[in-house]
């Protein structure tokens, strides 16, 4: 971990975990409008393909490559009753663990975590497993999301069908 200058406010893993748990709770409550407020307006939300976890959205096919505008549209879509795959909504349980905080500067920090996202709908159980990579910005004693990237450990999406929910 990069050394933190004494002048900088130290960041504890607990603070970061608290933020990530809040994010997970908003997603599980389908409070997507509030969830979107966690993002900066130049933020990215990315999900690479299963076979290219290091996929670069400027070069490779992704599963999801949202800028803030597209992410807003994704939320609008999921909030409508016409996003048929998610109306009625799935029940989800976003679980975040193995949290590591890295590259802390005065403005930003990188966070990697493991995740499992459980999805239940119409009698079907799906489970997404992978690694989150966040770039967080410090903001008024808290954080804002600059990048959220979900890299999937499953070799394919055969067991889950799609990524219509937000990971």
């Amino acid at each position: 971990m990069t050394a933190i200058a004494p002048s900088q406010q130290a960041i504890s893993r607990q603070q970061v975990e608290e933020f990530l748990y809040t994010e997970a709770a908003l997603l599980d409550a389908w409070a997507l409008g509030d969830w979107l407020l966690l993002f900066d307006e130049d933020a990215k939300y990315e999900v690479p393909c299963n076979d290219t976890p290091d996929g670069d959205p400027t070069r490779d096919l992704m599963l999801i490559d949202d800028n803030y505008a597209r992410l807003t549209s994704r939320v609008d879509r999921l909030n409508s009753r016409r996003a048929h795959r998610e109306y009625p909504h799935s029940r989800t349980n976003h679980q975040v663990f193995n949290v590591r905080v890295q590259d802390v500067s005065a403005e930003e920090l990188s966070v990697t975590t493991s995740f499992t996202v459980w999805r239940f709908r119409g009698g079907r159980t799906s489970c997404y497993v992978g690694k989150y990579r966040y770039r967080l910005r410090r903001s008024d004693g808290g954080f804002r999301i600059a990048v959220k990237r979900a890299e999937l450990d499953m070799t394919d999406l055969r067991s889950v069908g799609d990524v219509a929910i937000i990971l």
Partner: protein
Amino acid sequence: MSTDVEPSVIQATEVAAQLPLVVDDPVAQRFRVHRSAMTSPEIHRAEVERIFAKSWLYVGHESEIPEPGDFVRRPVGGRPILMVRGVKTGNVNVFHNTCTHRGALLCRQESGNSKVFQCFYHAWTFDSEGRLKGVPDRDAYAGGLNFDDLALKRVARVESYRGFVFASFDPGIVDLHTYLADAKDYIDLVIDGCGGQVEIVGGTHQYSFDANWKLLVENSIDGYHAESTHDTYLKYLVSIGTDLRGGVSGRAIDLGNGHAVIEYSAPWGRPVAKWEPLFGEDARTEIDRLRTDLVARHGEGRAHTMAEVNRNMLIYPNLIINDIMAVTVRTFHPPAPDVVDVTAWELAPVNELPSLRQRRLDSFLTFLGPGGFATPDDLEALESCQQGFVSGGVEWNDISRGMGRSPLANDEEQMRAFWRRWQHQMGNAADLAGAR
């Protein structure tokens, strides 16, 4: 079936044995498909033998293995297959991915480059042309081993068209050119519209869902569902400033041998070469230049078709090439009557300017794929149909839309082309008795 069936039921079953699952009635202008075609395990077994073992199936694109020794392994028609570019010949070799000794998968890596392929079980070694090169302790074989006989087994037939590699397990099948019939012209339009040379972009969409594979065939070339199923996608287009006037408008064409296409104008933009707000103002010049290039090379008429007309094409039985807001190549296989495994790629011009490539990648994801704004709703529709079939009470699907008129892109003639070929290939396996 129980043994104490009433005589009237037995009679009905005998009559049913004469009835095909696809009823094409041009007089009444009704086209119906019996729902057991989507649910019956017997029909599924017959499809494996009569359709997937007797058609040309898409293996991959030559651009995936550009260098000698490059390989990919993947299921084709549900069978593990190895496609490798021969180090000696430079040819695209397509092998059954099984060791000729005792059967283990020879190649267990998804892709890579290798001069030799060694089975880990007993260390038999083959080269990229399939020749057996090494057998440990070969002296133990009395009379010696015939290495030629024990070479990797090639899939019976392998041919390619403009970089698309197909294989067939049927040694007697017609050549690929004949098989593709009029679909060749539309493959040409896609590739020439991309400047003549294309490649598969890195990254693969591999997903599955619980519905019959033929529902995905129908859905992939269905213009009728766009406005209802994909309302949120169209609203997204509006939100970024796209003009929806004109809607989806065009025609459906039977391309022969079960292949079919819908070609139509639509509100969304195309990387080559129809500008839309998603691409940004600064992209207008580049897109105009691409359009001008197409006109210079192909003339105004063909350039218009390449640049502004969308194509959703089925290559019978299980390859989709959709040239829409981006180009997707999609193939699928059913491990069961109510499950389909889909693998989809993105096709793009080689040497595309990075800014154009990025726009193309972006455009793809708006609609397509398991995380797109449209494909998940298609999956919901198809699973919903499959669940609806279980309800019973209704025996037939109606696919009559547009019969008796010159078929439009939102009619169902393109699906009828598929189903007619399907019924023909299934023969007496596709009758009501066989489906029980």
